């Protein structure tokens, strides 16, 4: 089975308080030099059958209608580490 990864991130203009909280904690823990942190979601999909154009089109539709809310989030679809 092939693995397809969908990464979902808040759009750059949307305030990400969770990412900010992580960023603020970093110097306290001794990790310096990180100017900004944004937190996202990663979905790993184990796909039955071939990951052909049709399967990718379905996954793209799935990401657009359900995994991401495109009002506030962007997403990328990758097969085996390769962006598609």
């Amino acid at each position: 089975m092939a693995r397809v990864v969908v990464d979902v991130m808040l759009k750059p203009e949307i305030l990400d308080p969770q990412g900010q909280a992580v960023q603020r904690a970093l110097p306290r823990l001794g990790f310096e030099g990180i100017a900004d942190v944004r937190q996202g979601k990663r979905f790993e999909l184990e796909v039955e059958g071939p990951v052909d154009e049709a399967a990718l089109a379905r996954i793209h539709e799935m990401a657009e209608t359900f995994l991401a809310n495109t009002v506030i989030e962007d997403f990328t679809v990758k097969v085996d580490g390769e962006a598609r």
Partner: protein
Amino acid sequence: MTARVGVITFPGTLDDRDTQRAVRIAGLEPVPLWHRDKDLQQVDAVVLPGGFSYGDYLRAGAISRFSPVMEKVIEGAREGMPVLGICNGFQVLTETHLLPGAMLRNNHLHFICRDQKLRVENTDTAWTSDYEAGQEISVPLKNIDGRYVADERTLDMLEAEGRVAFRYVDVNPNGSLRDIAGITNEAGNVVGLMPHPEHAVEPLVGTGRTDGLGFFTSILKKLVNA
């Protein structure tokens, strides 16, 4: 015959009973509906109550948006049926795109529970006609995903068309853009807000006031006069 108001229960809904009670106190007949129902039992209006449907997994309201009953709610709303979404119900309405924008984690990341003052900005909706424009009401608020966001163009459009139905007064509890607590669709039949009017319909509980009752008496007048 009195008007019938459907109240939908999803897995994780908490405020369905309070909502049914508020509907009854206002003189309407509450009709419990289940998320798997494929028909709305000929109700005249629908309320999506508060809670944490499907545990807010993925995003608040994202999974319940695809419940079988929501197909009928979306269809009805587009045909003019009054729909009110409270808290999680508001989140579901943005996920269905019946209302624009989206709801995100509060800017301070904390769950918040307080009596919240609101200003009624639009009294031309199906759910707000019993209020006076500019009237300030106090109702309970409790949420962690209550931050309303939309792009600047959408916000400007909402302001220009008078579709900001409620604004937070004194305190913005969650970082909602332009202090928006609730909005309406273009036709005024679909309304969503984060605070909970259904918890302020009897003097004994909630804020000790009955400021939330106006939502339900508004819809009663609309349905009876229709």
